[in-house]
């Protein structure tokens, strides 16, 4: 594996990089997580393109985290909703770049569960 990913695990306060993958249905899905101070950047894809980006964070005025689309097709709300759900779980500012064709809710649930599983296994990476 890439040395850069390992290098990210050093100082607890610094930016940490973490790559993992998983299978959702027939598809092999790659994840690239970058943990910053009180925030997380998470890229999800099958090939290494960055086509969409959304950010979400918890709001004191609403139980649903606020989110906005930053890059890509604004009508594709998958990055948005995934960022919202992860923001609610982690209470952090979450950037999500979701780059898969499949946006079925059951498929995305697989993706979300894979992320949560990795968060449980390596909490220091998120």
């Amino acid at each position: 594996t890439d040395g850069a990913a390992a290098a990210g695990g050093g100082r607890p306060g610094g930016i940490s990089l973490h790559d993992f993958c998983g299978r959702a249905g027939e598809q092999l899905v790659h994840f690239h997580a970058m943990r910053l101070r009180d925030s997380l950047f998470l890229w999800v894809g099958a090939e290494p393109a960055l086509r969409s980006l959304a950010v979400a964070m918890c709001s004191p005025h609403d139980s649903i985290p606020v989110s906005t689309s930053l890059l890509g097709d604004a009508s594709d709300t998958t990055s948005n909703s995934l960022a919202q759900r992860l923001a609610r779980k982690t209470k952090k500012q979450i950037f999500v770049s979701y780059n898969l064709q499949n946006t079925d809710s059951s498929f995305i649930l697989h993706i979300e569960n894979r992320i949560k599983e990795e968060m449980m296994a390596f909490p220091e990476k998120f």
Partner: protein
Amino acid sequence: MAAKPIVTSKQREEVVRGVPTEVVCTAFSNSILVVVTQYGKMGTLVSVDPSTIANDVSKPSLTTKVLLGTDEPLIHVCAKNLVTFVSQEAGNKPVLLAIALKDKSMEGIKALQELIRSCQVW
């Protein structure tokens, strides 16, 4: 499942003119993500795009757009100074830049350019 990264990242941590600084560069097939932070956070997110309307045949001009954060003139100047060379060297790819700087002096920016260069993934 084992993690064979599909995207390449390089990171550096260094004290630049007295300020602890972190840089992370990540190569995607269609763009380069550059994070330069002196606060540990993403800060302002700027999209730096080689514009399609070429005003010069040899060098496409770069368009900067603040996607998140305070849209002030200095951010655009810093962004262009920091990552123009990244975009050019990557074959005119767009760069997504996250900057959170304490030191925005010209000398500081110069030093940060070198730090970004040391994280070359393009």
